[in-house]
């Protein structure tokens, strides 16, 4: 054994051979496989028809060598890699010395198939040989595993450090020479810090994504606003300009008309004069002709007519002949009245009032419970001297009711508005002012203050080893959008815990999955449009055992729960009956109370300390167990009942009014109760002596809760949050 394993390192251990009988050993090489290998190889050699048969033989052998390399490397896992083909692992490792040790095998691969173990690595058609391999390897392969691993371990150890300065892993050996001055840490630490960095960067990236998205949205709005503003300006100018043009046109018409009329008037006047002249001329000519005719007449007639004529002439000549031209051909100077046009033109150049600012949407997480930060922008070249920000709370009430509007003047384009009510929406709008006046109001934006932090009901926390159920009060009058639960594992002081968040919780309770036997700090935030509230006061949750609070709503009037929340007392005096609560939640007949056990299927364990002389009942029941019945008297409850009468202890294990006949000689003072949903069992134990008392098999289709009752005055104390004792784990 020693001689053949010359190549093996000194710490290589063989299994003792005499553990197995000789005939139980498997043969290393099943005959068939061996021949296949041989044949295959021989075939390959034969197929090499060229004279360089050896050469060809070499080519497939080069392949072989590759396969060999792989096979050899994986020969450690040879059994595992070709799992299905592996023999039962019962091939004794005593084979190893009979097989070639590693060094020898290497030699063989360099030669032709001359050795006596051709099965090794003769590849050819791989499958059959692999079977041979797999079969042969069995235990032997594990030996190879053992053999090879020490080398790998060395390498691992060597590379275990990380040089921070060079930011590269180095072998421990090299540290002294090249990295003597450098800072060196263990590889795992370096890994962790690298992971941390990656996480940080991821976080940064996420934040950046969010910011960029917001910015993109904002840009869109600005784009739209610019279009609007400039559109408005264009419109203004256009209408302005059109007004001017109309005015001019109008004037043109008027003037032309006036001119036309004047011309007409003048022409008519002149024409009138002309007609007058014409008549005058005609009259003169007529007179002349008459006179001439007269001159040709007889003397007597001539004198008659001449006298008449002389009268006519005299009259005629006395008539004023107006030879003045009434109408001057000159064109009077008329200055057109363009003053209004001028005025219009001038107004194009005066300073306009600013255009409306653009109010930004609320930036995420910029609000607190009492303040918001409102921002807006101006997208024009307008000169602005100040802004006026107005706001009022948004109410659902009838719009007729006037809400008080608050206004403030600011010079910047943002404002932190304080003294606001949490979880409330406020409407904001802003106008810009300059010498010319005020801009139109911006659109109205609704900003919301963050909510007030919730208040966790710390006395009502339910937990078990795998989860916790916490509930809280909203802390806000109005509804919020959702809640976020944050939890951190409480670790040793050096290590800071990672905070896990459960987001989007719609109601005021949350069931959170946790790791067993740890401590966690949990707190809750409320979330609305404005962002998250401040953190609530934290609570600590321990995931050891199961913890449940007692449900006061189920408490029979004659029972009281002490301040510690876990001692149940029935006093001597019977208290006056309390007011019955609506709905049947209180036990009315059985003086009992139930706990609220976390609705998680698994195993839950708790203990009850009892007075040996007390009459008590402990067990579990469904939520809807009839409260006017005794525990154990129906199908919805299972319990252990103890009665102490005439110095005798009697025990019953009740379900549906039935109990097995059980006698117990040592009266338990501390009862352990194991509720096992997985195996549908409920077990009771005497904790002090680790004695198992009884186990119910119970079909638990839903969730049950612990229940406790006192048939006579006395007390019992519940202990929970306890890890299951060992003796209980057998059940």
């Amino acid at each position, binding site marked *: 054994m020693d001689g053949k394993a010359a190549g093996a390192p000194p710490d290589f251990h063989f299994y003792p051979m005499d553990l197995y*009988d000789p005939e139980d050993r498997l043969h290393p090489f099943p005959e068939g496989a061996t021949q296949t290998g041989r044949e295959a190889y021989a075939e390959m050699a034969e197929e090499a028809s060229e004279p360089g048969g050896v050469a060809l033989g070499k080519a497939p052998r080069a392949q072989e060598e590759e396969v060999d390399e792989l096979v050899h490397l994986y020969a450690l896992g040879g059994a595992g890699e070709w799992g299905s083909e592996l023999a039962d692992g019962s091939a004794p490792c005593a084979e190893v010395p009979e097989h070639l040790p590693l060094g020898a095998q290497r030699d063989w691969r360099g030669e032709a198939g001359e050795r006596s173990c051709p099965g090794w690595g003769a590849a050819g058609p791989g499958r059959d040989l692999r079977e041979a391999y797999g079969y042969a390897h069995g235990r032997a392969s594990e030996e190879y595993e053992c053999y090879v691993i020490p080398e790998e371990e060395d390498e691992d150890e060597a590379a275990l450090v990380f040089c921070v300065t060079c930011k590269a892993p180095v072998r421990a050996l090299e540290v002294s020479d090249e990295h003597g001055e450098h800072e060196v840490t263990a590889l795992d630490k370096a890994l962790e810090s690298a992971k941390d960095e990656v996480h940080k960067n991821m976080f940064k990236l996420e934040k950046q994504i969010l910011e960029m998205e917001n910015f993109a949205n904002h840009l869109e709005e600005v784009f739209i606003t610019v279009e609007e503003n400039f559109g408005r300006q264009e419109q203004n100018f256009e209408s302005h300009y059109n007004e001017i043009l109309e005015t001019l046109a109008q004037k043109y018409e008027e003037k032309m008309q006036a001119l036309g009329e004047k011309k007409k008037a003048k022409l008519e006047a002149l024409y009138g004069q002309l007609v007058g002249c014409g008549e005058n001329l005609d009259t003169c000519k007529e007179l002349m002709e008459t006179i001439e005719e007269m001159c040709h007449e007889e003397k007597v007639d001539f004198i008659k007519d001449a006298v008449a004529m002389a009268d006519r002439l005299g009259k005629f000549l006395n008539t004023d002949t107006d030879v003045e031209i009434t109408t001057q051909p000159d064109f009077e100077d008329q200055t057109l009245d363009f003053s209004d046009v001028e005025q219009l033109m001038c107004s194009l150049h005066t300073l306009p009032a600013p255009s409306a600012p653009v109010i930004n949407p609320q930036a995420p997480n910029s609000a607190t419970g009492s303040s918001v930060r409102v921002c807006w922008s101006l997208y024009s070249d307008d000169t602005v001297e100040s802004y006026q920000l107005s706001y009022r709370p948004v109410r659902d009430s009838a719009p007729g009711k006037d809400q008080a509007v608050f206004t403030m003047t600011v010079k910047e384009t943002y404002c932190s508005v304080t003294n606001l009510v949490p979880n409330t929406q406020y409407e904001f709008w802003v106008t810009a002012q300059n010498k010319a006046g005020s801009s139109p109001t911006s659109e109205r934006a609704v900003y919301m203050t963050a909510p007030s932090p919730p208040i966790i009901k710390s006395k009502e926390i339910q937990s078990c080893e795998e989860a916790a159920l916490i509930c809280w009060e909203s802390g806000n009058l109005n509804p919020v959008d959702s809640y976020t639960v944050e939890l951190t594992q409480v670790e040793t002081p050096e290590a800071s815990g990672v905070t896990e968040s459960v987001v989007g919780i719609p109601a005021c309770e949350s069931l959170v999955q946790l790791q067993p036997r740890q401590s966690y700090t949990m707190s809750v935030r409320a979330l609305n449009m404005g962002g998250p509230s401040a953190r609530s006061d934290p609570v600590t949750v321990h995931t050891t055992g199961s913890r449940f609070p007692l449900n006061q709503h189920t408490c029979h009037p004659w029972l009281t729960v002490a301040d510690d929340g876990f001692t149940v007392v029935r006093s001597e005096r019977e208290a006056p009956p309390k007011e019955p609560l609506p709905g049947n939640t209180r036990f009315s007949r059985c003086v009992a109370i139930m706990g609220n056990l976390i609705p998680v299927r698994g195993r839950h364990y708790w203990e009850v300390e009892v007075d040996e002389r007390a009459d008590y009942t402990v067990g579990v029941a469904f939520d809807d167990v009839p409260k006017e019945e005794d525990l154990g008297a129906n199908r919805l409850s299972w319990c252990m009942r103890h009665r102490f009468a005439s110095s005798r*202890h009697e025990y019953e294990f009740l379900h549906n009014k039935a109990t*097995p*006949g*059980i*006698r*117990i*000689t*040592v009266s338990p003072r501390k009862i352990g109760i194991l509720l096992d949903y997985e195996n549908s069992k409920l077990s009771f134990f*005497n904790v002090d*002596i*680790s*004695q*198992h*008392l*009884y186990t119910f098999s119970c079909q638990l289709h839903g969730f049950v809760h612990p229940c406790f009752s006192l048939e006579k005055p006395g007390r019992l104390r519940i202990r929970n949050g306890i890890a299951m004792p*060992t*003796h209980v784990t*057998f*059940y």
Partner: protein
Amino acid sequence: MRLIFTNKGRMALKEISSNKCFEGLQKVFEHDSVELSCKMKFGIYLPPKAETEKCPALYWLSGLTCTEQNFISKAGYQQAASEHGLVIIAPDTSPRGCSIKGEDESWDFGTGAGFYVDATEDPWKTNYRMYSYVTEELPRLINANFPVDPQRMSIFGHSMGGHGALICALKNPGKYKSVSAFAPICNPVLCPWGKKAFSGYLGTDQSKWKAYDATHLVKSYPGSQLDILIDQGKDDQFLTDGQLLPDNFIAACTEKKVPVVFRLQEGYDHSYYFIATFITDHIRHHAKYLNA
């Protein structure tokens, strides 16, 4: 797969049968008993865990008329034993083939009715030493020849064997980690079976009887905490016949604050069907202490 048998102190053990059961082995051996001066057989179940390590030992004592066969073939305990990794040994109930006059006359005295006492009366005192056999010789034999842990041992039984288990545990505080019984004869000095057997084996001196009576032994039990589990069929005729008298035992245990859980099982009788129903509970009861 075979076991390694060391040669030290080896008494001639002859394997009579071997059957694989729940991945373990149910075997029957025969040997020459020194205490009983005859050949004795016993059944032994080796769980799969025994292949690789030493396991705790649990001794079963059978009742009247039984041999080593009844328990191993009727009780159906092998699955639980396999799961919990316990070696279970079931000896015979009395010496056999001793040719004592009258040994085969009744089924409740003599052959098959050893009552787990060391007889002091002739002609029984040579062979009928079942108490020493069960508490001394057999454990030594088992410890020497099988992969058992000598420090972890428990005992249980049925009817007469229940009586045997109780008295062995009560007379040897600390020797057994736990004890349990099915329908045991709890107070033999007061029941017909006990009176018949004790007068035959031990003579008329009742003080000698009390040394083998569980109810009496409990009253002066000084020892370490025992946790006793007893199952009793409610429809067991021997219960009604007053042969078993568990109430006396319970009362004594209550008085002495010896922890007992006594379960009266509705509808069950004295048979192996009753044993088979609750054997798993008993094995778990012992495993809790043996595997702790």
